[in-house]
């Protein structure tokens, strides 16, 4: 099950939970590296879960399905990490935001803009970066994270 247009709807069986399924983190990041941002969507209450997971925190249902997400959305809140974890030290200050995508899914990410240029309501677009271009201390990565891309939002 590597397709983003899979019709798999939970409850997931053990056979659905493999490293090439976006229901797992390796599968999610593989899809992201190919430019597809995947969420789980609850077929009961329409809550979007990003990254995908086997059950809905909104209503408890396991009837979740995969849903490719739009790359654009708006800033819900933002700040600047002036004193980041040591692996990110040289990147400080890091602008980060909570973004609500046009689908209603939400995720946190860095914003490629200085703090003073960002405001609540700003339109942004998600860009996927090769981890090597982001310049985070490689020691930060766990062994299985090394190939995972990093996402960054750009102001539109």
């Amino acid at each position, binding site marked *: 099950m590597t397709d983003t247009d899979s019709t798999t709807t939970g409850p997931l069986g053990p056979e659905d939970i493999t490293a090439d399924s976006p229901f797992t*983190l390796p599968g*999610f*990041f593989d899809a992201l590296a190919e430019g597809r941002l995947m969420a789980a969507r609850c077929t009961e209450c329409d809550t979007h*879960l*990003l*990254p995908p997971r086997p059950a809905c*925190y909104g209503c408890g249902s396991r009837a979740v399905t995969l849903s490719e997400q739009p790359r654009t959305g708006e800033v*819900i*809140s*933002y*700040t*600047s*990490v*002036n*004193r*980041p*974890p*040591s*692996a*990110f030290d040289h*990147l400080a200050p*890091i602008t*980060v*935001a*909570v*973004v609500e995508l046009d689908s209603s899914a*939400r*995720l*946190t*990410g*860095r914003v490629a803009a200085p*703090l003073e240029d960002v405001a*609540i309501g700003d339109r942004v677009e998600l860009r996927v970066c090769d981890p090597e271009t982001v310049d*985070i201390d490689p020691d*930060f990565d766990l062994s299985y*994270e090394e190939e*995972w891309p*990093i*996402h960054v939002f750009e102001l539109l």
Partner: protein
Amino acid sequence: MKHRNYSVAAVGANSVGSGTKLLISLVYDPYGMSTAHLIAVGSSPLGKTDLPGRDLFSTALAEAFEGLPDPAEVVDGLYVGAQSERYENQIMQGTLMAEWAGLRNVPAERVEACAAAGALALKNAVRDVRAGVHDAVLACGVEKMTAGGTEGATNALGAAFERALEQRSGITAPATYALLARRYLHETDATERDLGRIAVKNHRNAVDNPRAMFQQAVDIDTVMDAPGVAPPLKLYDCAPVTDGAAAVVVANDEVAADLQSRPDTVRVAGVGSAANNLAVAERDLTFVEGANVAASTAYEDAGVGAADIDVAEVHDAFTVCEALLAEAAEFAPKGRGIETVEDPEDRSAGWTDVRINTSGGLKARGHPIGATGLLQAVEAYEQLTGRAGKRQVADADTALLINEGGVADAHTVATVLTAND
């Protein structure tokens, strides 16, 4: 003996697929239920100290057991709240603390929910005593946060946030709370200065708390002029990195009555806890729902309402938390939590007359992560037994504690305590 209060209520078998499950329902027998009491409390010095974690624990234990028999004669179980093994490269904290207390071959467990670990230890101790599993349990918490400097603390605390998307974006504790604060300022009439006044109030309260890390007042200009840590949060919006430990003895009716050297005990009237989302992005940024559920559950368990609470210790790891928690605990109308700094007569309609963070809160008393929930209990114990000195709130007989871990209410434990008359 240990399980005398449970009986098997139902036994059944259920065929599911190829397997058959035997179902046994255990129900609680209310005739065995005990009330849980706090019979003694202690804390270590708070701040940057020379003492490692186990020694900080020893000081808290020594205070709690002053005038009492040996811990081994009083308690038969232990829970220790400890956020991270990164600080001292030590897990097995349950065994270690039990050993340092002279307890041997008793259940002793570390519990973890980042900064809610301390209240989680208390909750588990209360549950065991109420259920009759143990007659008395030691709930303690310890954290040696300065062991790796500011960098070590930042990295250790970072583990509390969602790994795949949030940690890998460089997020920190102040940054996640800044995301809440920015949105709070956007949705309400509150200003950065209103948040700053919460820090001023808590520093003022700590002046009269001999346990506090910062027994000194700060003025609003100092707060507003301080460097930004994660805008809109500035240095004084953030609780400090603190070494510290706390210990609380939780006992049933019989043990509490036996230890007549401490007649002024406090009753644990209600407990609630809730886990919400880990990722900040997936929260309601201005309503800490999990804290509201935990507080409501504790109120219901205690048979009280928000208006009955005289004093509250709420988790002001960052100033905005105190405003959000005042609302979640139903002390304040939505958007008006910032009036926590006002005297009750000056607050908006819909506010209760509760006094919040008389200890100085996490901001000024100090925030040794795993110990914080128990330091809140120490303050409530002193308020409810009339031992709070210049901080004493007149006629305080019901207290609420709210201890949180992760981003805001990723995990919340709420506890209602009442004075034993």
